[in-house]
C-alpha cells in the first residue's frame, strides 16, 4: 500500500512540531525517519497512524483518503518505542489480541487464531515463550513480540518508533537484519523512526532526514551519503571536518593554513569545505594540495581503524578535526600525540558563502567515487 502525505502540519500549543511537509512512499518500500531528538519523527509517525491528528493536510493510503479515518479503520501495524505490550497477558494472548477483537464476521475461529499465533511466534523465533508474561522477557524478545503482535492482523502498513532503541548493539543488529528479511518476504510498506544513522542507512530503501519539523532530504542511503543537500544533513551523517576559507590567489586561506583549488572544475569563492574524516590523509609536510598544520591530540585505535584527533595549529576551526586512517595507512606514518602533522583532503564538499544551495562536490586527486547503486 503506498502512502501519500500532503502538506501535513502540526502544532502543540504555540509550538510548531511539523511545518507543512509532503512525502510519498511507494508500496513495499521501507522508509527510515532519521533526525535529532525533537525533530518531529514520532509526531509524523503518529500522524500517519492516526494516533495524532494533523492540523492541516491530507493523507492517502493507496487510492483511499484516510485523513479523517479513525486509527481503528486505518489498519496499520504500530510498534511502540517501549513496546507497550499488555502486561497482564501472556505472550500468546498479546499476539492474539488483534485477532480476537475483530468483528464477529471476520474473526477467525479459536483454532485458527491459535494456529496463526503459533505461526507468528515461530516466525519471530519465540514459539517456546508463548506462555510467559512480558515482564519475563528480555528487551530483544519483547521487541519481537511487539512486532508479531503488530503483524498478526496482516496490516498493509507497518510503523515502528525507534524499534531498536533500547537494545544492545549485537541484538540490535540481529533484529535489524531479521526485520529487513521479514519485510522483503511479506512485502508490507514500512516506516520506522531512528536516530541512529547507521541503522537508517543500512535498513531503509529511502531515508527521510528531519530537523525542526522539516524534511531536510529524502534519498536512498548511498545518494544521501554522496550528495547531502545541506549542512545539517552533512553534519548529522557522521563526523565531518570544516575548513572555513577566504578565496585569495585561487587558494582558500585561513590564517596560516590554505587549501589549493581542487582539480574538479568548480569556480571557487569564499566558503566552507566539508571534509569527511576518512577522506583526510596525514603527511609530515605540507603538500601541493594543502597546507593544514594540525597538532595530534589523541590517537585511538577503534577496531579496523585508527582515529586521530587533531587541533588546528596557527589557524582557526570551531571544532576538533578527526582523521580516520586504516591501520595500514597509520603504520606508514605512525603519528604521536603532540606532533604536528599536515592533512591533505582527498574529497570534500564546498558550501559557498551566502548560498543556501546544495554543496558542490570537489576533489583533488583521482580518489574513487563512492558507489551510488544499491
Amino acid at each position: 500500500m503506498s502512502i501519500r502525505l500532503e502538506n501535513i502540519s502540526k502544532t502543540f500549543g504555540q509550538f510548531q512540531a511539523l511545518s507543512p511537509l509532503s512525502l510519498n512512499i511507494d508500496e513495499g518500500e521501507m522508509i527510515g525517519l532519521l533526525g535529532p531528538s525533537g525533530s518531529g519523527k514520532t509526531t509524523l509517525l503518529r500522524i500517519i497512524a492516526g494516533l495524532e491528528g494533523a492540523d492541516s493536510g491530507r493523507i492517502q493510503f493507496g487510492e483511499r483518503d484516510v485523513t479523517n479515518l479513525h486509527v481503528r479503520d486505518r489498519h496499520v501495524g504500530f510498534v511502540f518505542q517501549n513496546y507497550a505490550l499488555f502486561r497482564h497477558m501472556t505472550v500468546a494472548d498479546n499476539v492474539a489480541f488483534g485477532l480476537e477483537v475483530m468483528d464477529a464476521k471476520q474473526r477467525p475461529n479459536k483454532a485458527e487464531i491459535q494456529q496463526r499465533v503459533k505461526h507468528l511466534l515461530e516466525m519471530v523465533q519465540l514459539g517456546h515463550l508463548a506462555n510467559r508474561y512480558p515482564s519475563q522477557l528480555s528487551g530483544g524478545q519483547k521487541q519481537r513480540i511487539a512486532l508479531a503482535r503488530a503483524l498478526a492482523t496482516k496490516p498493509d502498513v507497518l510503523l515502528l518508533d525507534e524499534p531498536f532503541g533500547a537494545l544492545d548493539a549485537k541484538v540490535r543488529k540481529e533484529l535489524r537484519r531479521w526485520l529487513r528479511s521479514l519485510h522483503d518476504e511479506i512485502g508490507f510498506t514500512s516506516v520506522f523512526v531512528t536516530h541512529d544513522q547507521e541503522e537508517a542507512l543500512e535498513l531503509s530503501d529511502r531515508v527521510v532526514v528531519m530537523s525542526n519539523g522539516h524534511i531536510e532530504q529524502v534519498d536512498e542511503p548511498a545518494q544521501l551519503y554522496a550528495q547531502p543537500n545541506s549542512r545539517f544533513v552533512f553534519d548529522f551523517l557522521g563526523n565531518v571536518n570544516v575548513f572555513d576559507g577566504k578565496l585569495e590567489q585561487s587558494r582558500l586561506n585561513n590564517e596560516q593554513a590554505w587549501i589549493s583549488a581542487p582539480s574538479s572544475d568548480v569556480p571557487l569563492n569564499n566558503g566552507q569545505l566539508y571534509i569527511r574524516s576518512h577522506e583526510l590523509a596525514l603527511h609530515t609536510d605540507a603538500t601541493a594540495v594543502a597546507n593544514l598544520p594540525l597538532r595530534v591530540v589523541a590517537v585511538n585505535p577503534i577496531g579496523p581503524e585508527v582515529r586521530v584527533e587533531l587541533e588546528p595549529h596557527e589557524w582557526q576551526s570551531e571544532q576538533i578535526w578527526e582523521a580516520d586512517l586504516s591501520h595500514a595507512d597509520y603504520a606508514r606514518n605512525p603519528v604521536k600525540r603532540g606532533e604536528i602533522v599536515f592533512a591533505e583532503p582527498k574529497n570534500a564538499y564546498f558550501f559557498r558563502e551566502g548560498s543556501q544551495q546544495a554543496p558542490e562536490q570537489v576533489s583533488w586527486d583521482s580518489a574513487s567515487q563512492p558507489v551510488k547503486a544499491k
Partner: protein
Amino acid sequence: MSTTLSAASAKPRHKRVLPGFGLSLGSSLFFISLILLLPMTGLVMQTANMGWSEYWYVITDERVVASYKVTIWAAVIASVFNGLFGLLLAWVLVRYEFPGKRILDALVDLPFALPTAVAGITLATLYAENGWYGQLLAELGIKVAYTPLGIVVAMSFTSIPFVVRTVQPVLEELAPEEEEAGITLGASDWSVFRRIILPSLWPALVTGVALSFTRSLGEFGAVIFVAGNMPYISEITSLMIFVRLQEFDFPAASAIASVVLIASLLLLFAINIWQARYLKRLHGR
C-alpha cells in the same frame, strides 16, 4: 500543486484516538451536575433569599466568628499533626518490612468506616478525666476532653487517612537514584530527607493536608462529643450551623455553610493549581 491546495487547506477533522470521550465526559458532567452541583442550588437559593447585608450580618455574628477561629485553629493543628503522623505512617508502610505491616495498612482506613458519632463517643470515653488516657494526661495537668484540644483530637482522628493515602503512592513511586545521588555527595540521611525526598513529596503531602483540613472544617459528629461546646471557647462552626437548623433558620444555616464551602473549595482549587505548577517544574510538562 495548486489544485490540491484547496483540499489540503481544509482542516482535517481528527477523531479522538481513544473511544468514549463523549460518553465519559458527558456522563461525568451529568453525574457531577446531578449529584454535586444541583444540590448546591439549594444552598444558593436559600442564601439568595437574604439580602447582602443580612448575609453579612449572619456570617459575621460574634459567636460565629469565634467559632471560625476555634475551628480553623483546631483544623490547622489537626491537619499539621496529620501531616507529620501521616507522613511517618506512609514512610514506614512503604519503606520497611515488618510483621503486622498489612494490618497496620488496613487500620489506617478505620476512621473512614466508623460512624463519626461512635468515634466521638469513644474518644470522649478515652480522653475524659476518668478515661484511660484522661487519667494519665490529668497527672501531667493536661485536659483534652471538653477543651479545644479535644476538637483537635477528634479532627485528626477522622481525617488521618487522607494524608497517608495521598502520600503513600507517591513515596512508592520515588526513584532511588536521587536519594543515592544525595548520599554519594556526602549528605546525611536527614539532609537527603529534608532537601531531596521531602520536596518530591510536597505536592502530595500538601494535598493530603489540605483534604484533611477541609474535612476537619466540616466535621461535626465526632467533635461535639469531646468539644465541651462552650460558647466562644470550644464551639465549632458546624455546631453553629446545627444551631441555626434547630432554630429552623435555613437561610442562616445555609449562609454559614456557604462560607465554609467556599473557603474549602477555594483552598482545594488553589492547591490544585499550585500542585500543577509545581509538578510542571518537576516534570517539564
